[in-house]
């Protein structure tokens, strides 16, 4: 392609100045970007209002797209699914047969659980969901793993609230706009959830690895008790997530824990439930600065 005519300004003083101004403005733009970046890295919450407004503006289009999304399909799975339909169907039927049996067993356990709770006189502390929303998008080209849901402050959603799907925990609300919110997905490398093994009290932290898996770090180091296919659920520590929500299944054992796969793959999730913070007082106490030693009563 030929070089553009605008740069061959020749002796025309005005054209030369125009080209020069273009470069100056471009350089100033880059510097402005660097300044903005420094601010948002040092204080990540600074521009959340701006982003919330922007996502509110684009959310209706996202909702339309999410309605059209069929279950369980990433881009490549959607294409690959056509090739494996037959064998997959047979396998799924087999799985359904097994699952029906398991479901019946689970029903029985649930009844037994309710009976035992009644015996102990415990109140059934089922938390009421704040809002039901669609998972309408995710930052599919950035290194951060954030999702967008179609519920916001008008529905009662506030930052910090856990987001779950029927399959398990999805993440927590990071910023809430009026009609849409940004969700920090579990796989984001800044996300950390206290978990325990579903069968006993092996406690660990589940950190995101931003590649779709989680890294489980044991709290008590020593002999690693985790085995493959162990299921981990939220432990309730920290007060943010209600205990007992399924999080991940261990697939690979490491020295200080395990690599785990998410149980609630966001790609397969359409509708999500925003739950209230489990113990708001505990979360506030953790977020508040420690009390001044002077303020404590003497003696």
């Amino acid at each position, binding site marked *: *392609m*030929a*070089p*553009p*005519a*605008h*740069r061959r300004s020749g002796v025309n003083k005005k054209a030369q100045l125009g080209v020069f101004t*273009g*470069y100056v*403005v*471009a*350089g100033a*733009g*880059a510097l*402005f*970007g*660097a300044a*903005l*970046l420094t*601010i*948002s*890295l040092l204080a990540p919450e600074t*521009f959340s209002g*701006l*982003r919330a407004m*922007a*996502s509110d503006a*684009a*959310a209706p*289009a*996202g909702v339309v*797209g*999410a309605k*059209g*999304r069929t279950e369980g399909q*990433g881009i490549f799975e959607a294409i690959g699914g056509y090739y494996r339909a037959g064998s997959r169907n047979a396998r799924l039927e087999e799985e359904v047969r097994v699952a029906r049996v398991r479901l019946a067993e689970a029903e029985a356990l649930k009844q037994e659980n309710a009976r035992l709770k009644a015996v102990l006189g415990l109140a059934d502390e089922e938390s009421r969901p704040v809002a039901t929303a669609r998972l309408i*998008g*995710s*930052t*599919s*080209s*950035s*290194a*951060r*793993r954030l*999702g*967008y849901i179609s519920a916001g402050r008008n529905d009662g959603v506030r930052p910090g609230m856990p987001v779950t799907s029927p399959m398990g925990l999805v993440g927590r609300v990071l910023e809430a706009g009026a009609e849409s919110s940004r969700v920090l*997905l579990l*796989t*984001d*490398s*800044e996300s950390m959830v206290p978990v325990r093994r579903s069968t006993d009290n092996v406690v660990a932290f589940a950190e995101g*690895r*931003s*590649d*779709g898996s989680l890294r489980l770090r044991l709290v008590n180091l020593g002999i690693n008790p985790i085995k493959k296919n162990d299921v981990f659920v939220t432990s309730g520590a920290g007060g943010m997530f209600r205990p007992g929500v399924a999080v991940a299944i261990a697939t690979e054992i490491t020295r200080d824990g395990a690599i785990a796969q*998410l149980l609630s793959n*966001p*790609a397969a*999730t359409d509708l999500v439930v925003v739950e209230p913070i489990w113990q708001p007082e505990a979360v506030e106490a953790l977020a508040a600065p420690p009390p001044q030693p002077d303020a404590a009563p003497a003696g």
Partner: protein
Amino acid sequence: MEQLNPQSRRDPYGSRINRSQFAPLVYGLPWLTVLLGSLTPWLPIIAPAPVLPPFGFLLMLAWRLLRPGLLPPWAGLPLGLFDDLYSGQPLGSGVLLFSLALIIIELIEIRFPWRNFWLDWLTAAGIVVPYLIIAALLSGAEPTLVQLRVIAPQLLLSILLFPIIARVVAMFDRFRLKRVLRTD
């Protein structure tokens, strides 16, 4: 004249009689397509890992390389700002990286005024690879080795997808310059 050659009063963009190009389309379409490209996070794809190439950035590169001078050198500021609002990156990383990319292309253009498609592809690849790596490092998350490994498929996809995006942009370019009925 038309009986001798029916194409005599036409150019590739349509008849030249009582037809002219539509200014909002001519100057607006590149901006519009890049902005739409930045809206990829609203596609109904919930990716567990970064897999999609940065469409807004690639579209901007393709327009810039196809039509030098159409996007001004300062276009990185507004386009990057819009991209930041949706991409999940900290605000400002797009402004900085989009602006730097346009400035670097200016410098490459001074060095190689006559370019062909292969050089364009090489330029785009040479810009999008550092873009993705720097964007991952600036994403606000702790930079780890895993993170850099995760973006490898995205890097490859972005490089391989550039020729297709360039063809799509060329298609948009023909649409942009279509002659429509003159209204004045």
